[in-house]
């Protein structure tokens, strides 16, 4: 009755290797399953109607996770990592003001084709003319209109100048043509609301003067061909979500 002999050293080595391989395999399968799940989410995100995505929290979570690094790499240069814009004509994306329409669909269109990007499908119906530089409005006209804008936004203003500025707004400057008679803007043109006290190019009197004198011609590049449709959708959801927080 002798005790059983221990397994030869070589046999134990094989068993150890087998356990390692099986563990590795299980890990690989787990990783593959995760990837497959992500791919499925990506497909679902793209298949959903753009403005219905917010009805699916799992898709919103997926889009946010996918879009965060993309935004940091491609968009933050102008819009800032906090999405609040960097004061160079790139708007704050966290507020509720959208020049070309809100919601995932319109944001996605803007990302895809850009603004005045040269793409035929881009948002580029009009631009803010250089009223001063072109000699269409005098220095005094512009200063008066600035006072009118300050009045519209309940900021300190000169009464007489604002009165004359309103006249110039409605006649000589033809500002109402794009910004509407009540100055609340027209989305079809991408003309901003001038009563919301939100200014993409700065809201100081001098900034407002410069906007009228030099005009504005903000552009955003088209990302079609540079990002995949799924990435663009994810970014649109990401930005839309940020604006609703």
């Amino acid at each position: 009755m002798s005790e059983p002999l221990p397994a030869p050293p070589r046999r134990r080595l094989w068993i150890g290797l087998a356990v390692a391989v099986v563990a590795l395999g299980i890990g690989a399968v787990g990783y593959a399953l995760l990837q497959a799940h992500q791919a499925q989410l990506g497909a679902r995100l793209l298949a959903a109607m753009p403005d219905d995505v917010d009805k699916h929290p799992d898709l919103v979570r997926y889009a946010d996770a996918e879009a965060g690094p993309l935004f940091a790499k491609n968009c933050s240069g102008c819009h800032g990592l906090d999405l609040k814009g960097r004061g160079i004509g790139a708007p704050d994306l966290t507020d509720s003001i959208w020049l070309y329409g809100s919601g995932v669909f319109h944001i996605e269109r803007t990302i895809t084709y850009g603004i005045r990007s040269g793409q035929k499908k881009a948002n580029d119906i009009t631009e803010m003319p250089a009223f001063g530089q072109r000699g269409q409005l005098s220095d005094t006209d512009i200063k008066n209109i600035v006072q009118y804008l300050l009045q519209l936004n309940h900021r300190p203003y000169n009464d007489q100048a604002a009165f004359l500025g309103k006249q110039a707004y409605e006649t000589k400057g033809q500002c109402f043509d794009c910004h509407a008679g009540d100055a609340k803007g027209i989305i079809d043109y991408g003309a901003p609301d001038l009563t919301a006290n939100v200014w993409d190019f700065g809201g100081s009197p001098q900034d407002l003067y410069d906007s009228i004198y030099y005009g504005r011609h903000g552009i955003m590049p088209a990302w079609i061909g540079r990002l995949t449709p799924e990435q663009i959708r994810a970014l649109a959801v990401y930005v839309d979500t940020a604006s609703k927080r």
Partner: protein
Amino acid sequence: MRWSAATSHRPARPVVLAMVAAVVGLGAAGFGLLHPAHRDLAQVPPGDIALVNQEPVLMSDFISETEQANGVPFAQTTRAERAAVLRRMIDEELMVQRSLALDLPEQDTDVRTALSDGVTALVTAPVLSDHPSDDQLRAFYAAHRANYATQGSMAVTDLVLRIGGFENADQSPEQAMADAAQAVYELRSGAGIDFVKQHFAFSETGKVTGEEPDFAARLHLGPKLYAAADKLSDGEVSEPVQDADGVHVLVMQHRQPPVFTDYDGVRNNVYTDYVAAQKAQAKQDNLKFLRRGAQILVAPGQDE
């Protein structure tokens, strides 16, 4: 005895077989999961509304066009309205594909122009976002001041002393210049044109007929003679001007100089012209870039 001897000699065989099976199985499973099967050709990918000969029609474009066609948000459009838009988009895609099959970009001038204009629009778009400063516009105005002037006019007599040929067969260029200088002296001293023509064998070219606008005079005289004429006032005589056909002397009969508009009077035009010039420059820069990367062969003896 043989069996036990065998197992004792090869204790790892079952384990090795199990490992091989596990590796193969897991590898196949992993590969399958990480590399999804090729897209089913009969299936419309997510994000598209249709596939036309494997070319996608984007859902985004479909929604946008449906809204534009019906003037209401997409959710408010009817199934029939959407179907009509989709049919039109598919038809358009078919036509585009057919145009490529027919090689229209190479054969149809309108298509070529549209493609060329499309590229120009893309490369010049960023130019428009750069607002020029007032200094830039004023510098542009100064450099192109002639563009912002009313058209002047001139009635000028162009006399030429041809070198060689029938009229002055033995005359050298040096002699012609000396004769022309003498003729200028006579004209400035009050001699008439007929006297000079007879005495020095000058002839009138007739390049300028009566009073001509500056652009016409420039066209008829050529740049060298026009530059000389442009400096003259009423009754003045130019210095001799050597040109391809002989030595010229210009006598200004009447000059109405152009009137230059000051900057403030033409700001709008200056701005528009400046932007147009910037766009033209961007287009040229793009062409230079394209040429650097292109292989262009020109037939022997031909210039481009």
